[in-house]
Every structure is written in C-alpha cells, then in structure tokens.
C-alpha cells in the first residue's frame, strides 16, 4: 500500500512574532515494513531550513529558523510512504515477558533503537505505581510477550473512553488514568507506564493511520490528526512490535510511523521557541490517502 500524507500545521499569532526557532520532526522515518518514497516540506510565509545537531529520538529532524517578523506560520509536510507490514500473530514460541525484560537489561545496543533505551521512566512517563498495579495483571512474567501486550491494549481500549475534551497534550498519564478517559496519547502513555513498570522495553510511536476506512470497516479513531501508539520490543527475532491501544489493534498496514522516542517530548512533530508576546492559535490538519486500490489490508483477519 502506498499512502500520500498531507500534514499541515498552521500557527496564528495575535501579535507579530519577531523570531522563531523550531524543530520539525515531520518527515516519516524509515521503519521495518515502511519506506519513505518522496517528501516535501513547505514553510510559509518564509523560513530557513537546516540541520539540527542534537536529537534524542528516532526522528528526521529539521531546524526551522524564522527571523523576519510574521503573524502566521504555516508548515506543510507532504510524504509518500510505502507500507508493507504483516499483522503479527502471537505464537506459543514467543519469548516470555521475563525473557524480553532480561534481554533488554543485558543488551549491548546503546543506540536509540536499542531496547535498553526504553525500560526506564522518561520525563513525561514516570513509573506511576497506580498505573503499574493496574496493568500488572496482564503482565505475568511467564506470559508470551505478544499475547500479553495485546491483552493489555484491549483492556485499555475496553475500560477507557475516547474523549477529545478530557485531556490536553501535557496531561500527566496519572490524570488520564484516574478519569479513565483521554485520547491516543493518554492511552499510549498509560500502556507504556504499565509495560515499563514491569521492566519491559516500551517506546512511544507517533505517526498516522489511514483516514478513509476500507469498505465495510469502521473509520479508525484518531485518523484526522497525528496518532500515537506503543512499540514493544519482543526480542531479537520479532524486534519492535506495534500495538495501538486506542483501537485495540496491531500496528500493520494502516499505520505509518513518523517518529519513535521514549515519550512525546522527544518526538513532538513541531516544537521550539518563538519570541513574541501574543497568544497563539494552532490548527493541525492531517490527510492520509491510499494511492492504490486498498489491497494491502487484505492481510487483516
């Protein structure tokens, strides 16, 4: 399946902004099962794009510098991505949770893709004991890692309500957990908290899911904006397996990974500093269109 993605971020500032420096992490990374074919980034009215030296997560980062006064800023990211990813099927031979926890502790991969990077709390995802306890019942150490991961995702999907008004981008996982409602980011953070509290390597993935569902299937939640889900490292053979607790499904042909990090702070699509005193309003629109006839979902059960 080839997807065409248009992701427009528009800022309106009350007053003139004299100066802005931003990190853009909008260009989707290459990831097992997906490949970036074509990409364009357009900034209006004007801006200078360049490399950034320091980067924490797995992201394609571009530095945007605007040093002429502006009142609006529009960032348009257009990508063509091929996705060819099978739905993982849990198996009796899967490593247990205890296995992957031990392997992650002993890993000799210090890269940002290595499991050791994702077994500790991170600034936005502390090891909250309340969430850890709640998740623990699905995470007994001798359970197969895929099966257990999906069980936890399904319980989150069942027990939590999707509610776009309940939380904000900076709502701590505990608050969303206590009110049992939130959006994809909250569910992903809660699931990651639970996995890490059990010593498991869990990463935060941001990206897209297809906007128009295949015929006869319901529209996926979170399709009109960027989406977030969880990656669980399932040993050297399986590698990173994506689980989407918002929809209770595996990451497969409908998900496009934009960036991967320990938490949102490392891979925010746009962040940085602006100089100005006025309030700002932000609008985001996302469009994910399959370019070819929708055959790639044929792997769905």
């Amino acid at each position, binding site marked *: 399946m080839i997807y065409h993605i248009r992701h427009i971020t528009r800022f309106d500032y009350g007053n003139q902004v004299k100066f802005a420096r931003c990190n853009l992490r909008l260009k989707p990374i290459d990831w097992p099962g997906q490949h970036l074919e074509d990409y364009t980034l357009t900034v209006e009215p004007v801006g200078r794009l360049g490399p950034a030296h320091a980067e924490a997560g797995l992201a394609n980062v571009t530095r945007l510098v605007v040093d002429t006064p502006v009142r609006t800023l529009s960032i348009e990211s257009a990508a063509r991505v091929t996705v060819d990813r099978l739905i993982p099927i849990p198996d009796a031979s899967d490593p247990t949770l205890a296995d992957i926890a031990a392997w992650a502790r002993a890993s000799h991969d*210090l890269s940002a893709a290595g499991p050791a990077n994702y077994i500790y709390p991170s600034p936005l995802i502390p090891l909250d004991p309340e969430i850890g306890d709640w998740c623990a019942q699905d995470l007994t150490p001798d359970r197969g890692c895929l099966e257990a991961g999906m069980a936890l995702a399904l319980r989150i999907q069942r027990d939590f309500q999707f509610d776009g008004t309940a939380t904000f981008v900076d709502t701590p996982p505990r608050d969303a957990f206590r009110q049992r409602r939130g959006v994809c980011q909250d569910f992903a953070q809660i699931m990651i908290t639970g996995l890490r509290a059990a010593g498991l390597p869990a990463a935060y993935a941001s990206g897209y899911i297809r906007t128009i569902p295949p015929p006869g299937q319901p529209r996926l939640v979170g399709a009109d904006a960027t989406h977030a889900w969880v990656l669980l490292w399932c040993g050297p053979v399986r590698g990173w397996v994506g689980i989407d607790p918002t929809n209770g499904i595996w990451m497969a042909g409908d998900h496009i990974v934009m960036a991967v990090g320990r938490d949102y702070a490392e891979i925010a699509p746009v962040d940085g500093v602006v100089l100005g005193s006025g309030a700002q309003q932000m609008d985001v629109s996302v469009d994910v269109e399959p370019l070819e006839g929708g055959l790639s979902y044929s792997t769905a059960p």
Partner: protein
Amino acid sequence: MATQPAPPAPGQSAPLFDAQVHARRWIDDYIARAPLHDLLRSGPTAPWQAMLEELAAVASDDLGHARERVQRHATDIGTGFRIIGDGEERPWPVSPVPLLIDAAEWTGIAAGVAQRAELLERVTADLYGAGTLVANGTLPAALVTGSPLFLRPMVGIDPPGGHHLHFIGVDLARGPGGEWRVLADHLRAPAGAGYALENRLAVARTLGGLQAKLNVQRHAPFFAAFRAGIAAACRRTDPRIGLLTPGRYNPSYPEQAHLARYLGLLLVEGADLAALEGKVYVRTIAGLKRIDALWRRLDPRLLDPLAFDTHSQIGVPGLIDAWADGEVVLANAPGAGALEAPAFAAFMPTLSRAVLGETLKLPTIATWWCAGDAQRAHVEANLDTLTIAPAFGHLPLGLADHASRADLLADLARRPQDYVGQEEVALSTMPVVVGDRLEPRPFTLRVFAARGADGEWVVMPGGFGRIGEHPQATAVAIGEGLWSADVCIHGSEPVAAISLLTAPDSLHVRRNPGTLPSRVADNFYWLGRYLERGEALLAAIRVLLGNSIDVDGGAVLSPATVGKLVGLIVGAGGAAHPPGLSRAALTAFARAAMEDEGWQSVAAVNRYAREIGEASRDRLSADMVRLLEAPFPTQRGMLERAGTLQRRYAAIAGLSAEHMVRNDAWRFHDLGRRIERAMATARALRLFGMKDDTVSTPDDLSTLLDLGDSQISYRQRYPTGVARVPVVDLVALDPGNPRSLAFQAERIAEHLAKLPVLGDDDMAESQQSHATALAAIIATATAADLNPDTLGDVERRLGTLSEAVARRYFLQGAEPLRAVGLTLA
C-alpha cells in the same frame, strides 16, 4: 597520662607556654576518648599540637570562643555572597579545627583522584563517541540509559577543546584502617569548591601562623590551572569566559558569585547570552561580545530549549548547536553526569583495567548493581547488611516512603536495574569542637580536580571536609553533614610563595574582564535610582516630622507648606493621602510612607534596592552588601528610624563614592542616582520655589533647602535670611552645589559621554543628545525666570532620557534574542 609540660624555657613567653599547655591538655583529653581509628589518635600528634597551639594562642583555653571566632570570620567572608536573614545562612558552619592530612599521604590520594578523573573522561568520551565499551560487552547498555543524566542528543558530538570534563569533585571516605575510598563522583557542576576557599580564608584569618608552621599547601595554583585549562580549550587566544548561573534564586548562587569573582569570570545568566549564526554572545553595554567558554552551573537539560527541554525559560536557544560547531566550550560538557549514577560504581574496577590497564588507586565503595542475576542474588541475601539505594537518579518504587520489605523484594524482581546494594563504610573520626571541648566526629572529604592548560589533571590540595552530627555515622548516613572543615595538606617542605599572588588565597587570580553585561548595568542603574529615591522620600518624611535646623521648622510649618509636603510624598507614591493635617493624621501618614507595602514607601524602595544588590553581589563590596541587607529598622520612634536609615543611605553613598572603582558599572550606578536626584529636585522646586500661583513663603523656601540638603550652604552664603531667588539659584542652578539640578545635569552628560557607543561615526547617540539638551536648558536658565513650565519640561526630559538609556543599554529595550514563549504542537 599526659606528661607534665616543662616550665617555660628562658626567653620563651608565657602566652606561648600557655598555648602549649592548653593544646597538650586538649589532645590528651581527646585521645583518651577517641576511637582507635581516629585521625588524630592513630597518627603523629605533632601537627595537631602545632595547630591547636595556634588555636590556643587566639582563644586561650576557651574552645567555644575559638569556634565563634572562626565562624565570625566565615560569616564575614561569606556575607558578600549570601542573603542574610532570608533563611540562606551558610549551609555548613565551619569548624575551627581543620582536617590535617600529611603531604605524603595526600600524594597517594591526589594520584588516585587524578587517575579517576582520567578514567571518567575516557569512559564518558567513549559513551558519547565510539561506543566500544557497550558494544564489546564491558558495559551493559542499560547501565548507561538508566541515568537521567545520559543525554542521548549529545551522542556523536565532539566537545570543543577535546574534553568532556574540566572540573570534577570526588567524595572520599577514610575507613577504620586508614584507607581512603571513593563514595561518589560529581561530574556536572560540583558544588563546594567555593566553600573550600571560604573555609581556608576563615581559618587562615584565625590561625594566622598555621601556614608557616605546617607548610600548608595553597589553593590558588589549582584555580589558576583550572582557568588556564578552559582558556586552552578555546579557539581564540584571549578568550572571554563566563560562569553560567541559573540565577540568584539558586541555592548555590552565592558560591557561584564568589567563584566568578575569584576566577575573574563573567557571571552570566541565560538571558545575558544569545546564540546567533552558530556563535555565542554576551549582551553588553558595548553591544554583543563573543563569549568563548562557559563554566556552566546550570542543569544541562535547561541549557538549550531547542536541544532538550523546550520549556526551559533560562536556557539559550541555539547554544548546543554552537557547541557542536566548536564555537563555544562548555565545562563540563552536557551529558557528563551520566557516570555519576551509583550503578556505575560497580563497574569502576573493571573499567579501570579495561580502559587504563591499571587497577584503581582509590577503590570505590563496594557496589552491586542488581540488573545482573548474581548481583541481585547477593544483594537479596545480604539485605540487612547492605545499604539498598537507587541505582540512578529516580527513586524506585520499592524505596518509596511507605514501601515495605515485601514491596522492595517485589519491585526488585520486576525492575532490578533500579537498585544497587552498597557496603556500609565505617568512617574515621576527627576532632571537632562541641561545647567547649574536642569531640570525635565522622567526616567525609570532597576533593576537586581540574584540567590544566596542557590537558593534565590538577588536584586541589585539600578540599571540602564535611563532618557528621552523630559520633557513629556511616558514609551513607552522613549525607550532607552538619559542619564543614578546612582541609590542610601539611608537610616538611616549605611551600613556595606564588608570585601571582601577594597574599595567600585572598587575591583574585585575574581581574574582572571589562565587559559589562547589560543586565548588570541595568541593576546598577536601578540600584542608584532606588537608593536615591529612598533618600529623597526619607528627607521629606523627616521635614514633615520636624527635623529642620531652622528653629521654626517641623511641627510649626504652616499648613500650606505641610500640605505641599504631603502632596510631594503622595505624588511620589509613598503613601495614600491623609484624611487631614492634624498631628495624629500626619504621624500615621509618615508611618505609612515609611513602611506600608503596596506603595512606593521607604520600606518598599529599600527592598527593591536590596533585591538588586543581591543580584549583583559578585560586583559589590561586602560592606555595601551588608548595608543593603541590614534589616529595616522597626524599633523606636518614626523620626529616629528615619534617621537610622538616612545614615545608612549616607554610608552606602559614601561607599559608592569612595570605594567603587570608576568603571562602567559605577557610572551606571551614579547615573541612576543623578537622574533620580534631578527628578526629585525639579519636583521640589516646582512645589516650593515658584512664585506664580502661590507665593513661596519662608516655610516653603526653608523646606526646599531641607529637601535639597542645602540649609547650611545657604546660611553660610546668605546669613541675612531666606529669599526666593537666591534659594532657587542655589538649589537649581548653582553648578557648585552637589545637590543642585545643574550639578546633576552636568554629571549625567559626563557619564553618557564616557560610556561606550555602538557606532564609529562619531555621532551622538539618542541618550547623549537628550542629556546635552537637558544640560543646555539648565545652564541657560536664570533663577528669577525659572518657572513651573521649564521645570515640568526638565522632569519630562529626564523621563525620556531614562528611557533612552534603558533602550540603548539594558536588556529590556534591546531586540529580544531569547524565548519569551514557546510552541509545542
């Protein structure tokens, strides 16, 4: 038993003899009670005897008195760097008894610390560079990623100058057998070096003869080497080096200010810096100036909102890019703290062999990181004898406040990587003064190492000794300690006098660079304005309450004059208008103008001045800071309190006139004073010296002379009595009267002429033109014709001038170059 001291030899003085007797008695008494492994008891007593004789020479046989003396010196030295009365007292009172270590023993310690510093540098460089130690299995990746101080964005960046570490601290413990062991490494911004300096100064002031008697090694060469090491890492040959502080609300700010002053570094905050086109600049009154290196005392995650935490309001956007481009040296490099994690201690012996091919000269406290199965089993089997501690920065769930042993074991099974087990280290004791005798107390020692100009490690001879409160504390339990002690490395060889310095440890290694940051100029300007404003308000209150040398002044001023005085104070925002002019109403009004918050009362203005003083303590004399921080008088009558304050302000004015070097900082301070005084004088002239609407009465004129502090000058010049025109001439136009408007205008123009300008076209800048115009108006005025319109114009022009100064020189007026808002999409 102590042997009886011999009677004084011929020619030996009685006090010296007494000192020997006291010292001997203290030592004997102490040894009888001290544990076997005590530092004094287990080694030669001669150095201690010599040191205690010095102590006895100043305090006779009263040890409590000796302690107070040293503490007083320490407080005295530290006052310039601390906020007295704000709960920011010196965190560790200094013990009068220094920790004495023999030079031979010290050589071993110093070699161990230097070896460790080199090892830490090489491992840090590998983690952020080639990554071989993890790839080849020497270190698990999880040991590195567990530390919140491991900054992944820094991977792959070569630090400018080639080194990650320039200044480190190592905590040491001396065990019962006399062996030294490493408790912890401090690699980010180790605190304590400034306190070590202060302790040395305080002890040296009390025990003046100690240096010569024991050949105590000096600290100055260490700091000189550190500064030279940073300079050597810079690209430019005569680099500008700053100390980057989180600001004056940081608990370590006093120490940072002290060190900046001592090392001749520019004390800067994030707001003073701008990263432009890959280079870093400090914003000064002479425009943007390159800065080549920063000794950062700021949490690395706050350094640059673009690289780390976008919420950081005190960082410098673009700083990390400039660093990665090699344009600015950061000491230490961001991310250097990764090896501070206690879990690393478990790997130090292995790393030493793998990286240096040597064994550790100073062993690390025995540590088991529970991520390994065998290590976890060992810790679980020895839960009662080991100390269980967090392996990294965060507190694991099993060690939370209400966690039980079962909780601990359960979490150990889930997340063993969060825990270490550490051996409990029994500590040697040393003598400290408790009450009026010497008592043994456990101690730890923080030693500092810095990289010198040739990249070599230099170890500070001595350090920061910390003393536990309880006689039996272990290394882990001692924590921050209760007291601190100077650490003297003594030997038989005389210590060479250092030509760089004329007195031990008391002189600045380098003079402060001439660059005046805009923020500092701003502070000094407003310090001058607030002090002057306070003085003017006090003068008005004093006249109102009756303190004129004119026998008819004060209480018997005419109601019209009193009304104008009240108007003057209300107009200055000092207090709300009183309901009437009765004696009682006026007294209440005066009290409000003195101390009411919410208005620009004397107390409020005094507080502003004090806050600014705190922010500038690296550039103010200790005396000045002490006066600024003296408590606001609240006792006794209003008039007396006003008098106390007025004398204090006069002392401050005297200090700034007589003791401040005539540099640009002083110029801004004086400029603030002159502008404020000119404004107050113009206002007073308009109220009390004009003839058109209300005729100036003798009361008015006398008040005018009082407010302008010109009574005596006037009476000497015109003994016959007060008349309007001569009074106005003296207060407004006489350039010889230092309180006159004309005098202020001349000084203002003079200051602005001497301050730096940006252009090289020889054109006057806006603030200079304003000042010249103002001086011309006053110079051409005559006392008879001076009218309210002209004075109103003068006041407005002063306001405009002040704004022009702010726009040109201060941060607020300049083009903003750092974040005031942020975007998180």
